């Protein structure tokens, strides 16, 4: 207080706190890492060149593209769109729609994906050989009234369809929608009530308020767990072999591994592909979060800057 200008405290030049523990930990980890690397080199059963070769084989690449990448994109599109619709239904004022949404989530969240896919692949085709798209009870109606047409517009051969990739994608998508619905519901509920009221006061109807005001803000909360779900889905596409869809990454690599007795290189190959796809997705997630964080300041951008940097494959 009584300082004169000459001895007022100036620029701070303080010694940082020492962290000896960090150096010890680093040393331990380096030793362990060294042991691992040396085992890579000395144990020829790892056989990384073979693993690298397997990664590039045509059936593996086809499995990666169709089963893993198309499978993930397709099922997540169905899952996200379906999930948001189910969440909106769940929050609607119509008790029938609320009930439908609840039962849907209850059913698809309750059964394992492996069981669901096996059921779609073999069970459904056994029950319904073909599905006719037309008027409800059109065939019964037509025979009752003695008409020649039976009101069928389009027939789907379930036996053939049920073992395709598309059937598998639909199965995974339906299951994912149940999880996404819960994520979307949490996102929608996280938006301040005043936002909906402000939209209503401007004369927007419920649909407009949801689409233009509430959902864009809910996305900020929805995107991070959705990235998580997408990365989980990359791995769950390996379940497609239960359909059975054989143009699938894990099915193809393990087939090669079993055939050539290169068991471990095959596992290394498939692990590497899953890690690469997952890393690319983390980068994408960073940009999505930035996009939907608009108007909420910079903290969210800062927080996720690091995973993206580590995500470069």
């Amino acid at each position, binding site marked *: 207080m009584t300082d004169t200008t000459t001895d007022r405290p100036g620029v701070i030049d303080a010694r940082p706190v020492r962290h000896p523990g960090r150096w010890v930990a680093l040393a331990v980890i380096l030793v362990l890492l060294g042991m691992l690397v040396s085992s890579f080199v000395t144990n020829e059963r790892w056989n990384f060149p073979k693993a690298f070769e397997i990664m590039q084989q045509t059936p593996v690449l086809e499995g990666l593209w169709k089963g893993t990448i198309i499978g993930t994109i397709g099922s997540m599109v169905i899952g996200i769109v379906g999930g948001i619709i189910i969440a909106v239904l769940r929050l609607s004022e119509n008790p029938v729609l609320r009930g439908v949404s609840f039962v849907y989530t209850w059913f698809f969240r309750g059964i394992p994906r492996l069981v669901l896919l096996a059921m779609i692949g073999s069970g459904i085709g056994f029950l319904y050989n073909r599905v006719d798209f037309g008027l409800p009870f059109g065939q019964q109606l037509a025979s009752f009234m003695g008409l020649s047409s039976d009101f069928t517009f389009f027939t789907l051969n379930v036996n053939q369809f049920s073992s395709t990739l598309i059937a598998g994608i639909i199965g995974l998508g339906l299951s994912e929608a149940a999880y996404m619905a819960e994520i979307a519901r949490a996102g929608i509920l996280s938006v301040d009530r005043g*936002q909906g009221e402000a939209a209503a*006061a401007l004369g*927007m109807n419920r649909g407009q308020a949801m689409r233009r005001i509430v959902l864009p803000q809910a996305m900020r909360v929805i995107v991070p767990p959705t990235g998580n779900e997408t990365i989980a889905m990359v791995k769950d596409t390996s379940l497609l072999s239960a359909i059975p869809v054989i143009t699938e990454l894990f099915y193809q690599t393990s087939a090669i591994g079993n055939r050539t007795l290169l068991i471990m290189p095959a596992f290394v190959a498939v692990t590497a592909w899953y890690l690469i796809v997952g890393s690319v997705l983390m980068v994408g997630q960073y940009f999505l979060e930035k996009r*939907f964080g*608009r*108007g909420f300041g910079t903290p969210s951008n800062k927080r996720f800057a690091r995973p993206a940097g580590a995500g470069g494959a």
Partner: protein
Amino acid sequence: MSETTSAASTAAARTRTGEEQPLVHAVNVMKSFHGNEVLKGIDLDVHRGEVVCLLGPSGSGKTTFLRCINQLEAIDGGRIWVDGDLVGYRDEGGHLHHLTDKQVATQRREIGMVFQRFNLFPHMTALENVMEAPVQVKGVGKKQARARGLELLEQVGLADKPNAYPAQLSGGQQQRVAIARALAMDPKLMLFDEPTSALDPELVGEVLRVMRELARQGMTMIVVTHEMGFARDVADHVVFMDGGVVVEEGKPKDVIRNPQHERTKSFLARMRTEDAEEATDTQQP
């Protein structure tokens, strides 16, 4: 169909109130929340171009009443007409029918509302906030909405901030954007729900200035406020509410300077001591 019913109710309102039809005509409005009676029969007429201030202690029901006018709350009893249209219902041979979601939205277009906590859309810039409703609700072209939006932002003194997000604006600036956003729908009535209560004291003035200017231009306004100076200077009519009823109403100089009821007197005395305390606070270095 809605035109014929609105014409019918306009006629009905006219016969009830004589030839000069108030813009807002509320009769015996009642509202309860879980058995707790918040409004116990409110009557209020607001004429075109009038500024009405609702005063009263918190919990007196003034905000609830304001929210009932544009159907953010549904009323349990009584009737509200805005510009001759029965709010929230249509009257068919003495039987009331609820309006659909779309019809309610149509009624709200005509009424602008400004909230205590601004409620700007945080994912949109100031200009996008102002343009949103004209484009989405009225189907105005983007170019035209943009021009009008910039004009409105200038009117509230924010011509230099069209591209700022709400988080980048002060409370006072946000509230002025919110006023511009409400005005963009060309409402015939503006509702203000404690528009300055969430603001730092030094930001209150800029918002009140915009509201004064709006009043001067002849906008019909219902303002819930604790700003006695604003009520005294700007209001044509003040209504003092307490415990869900209107205790006293009249010209501001009568109600504020010379209150008749005990409850009004004690409330105003309390407000005055607070004002005085605040004045001494600001005088201190």
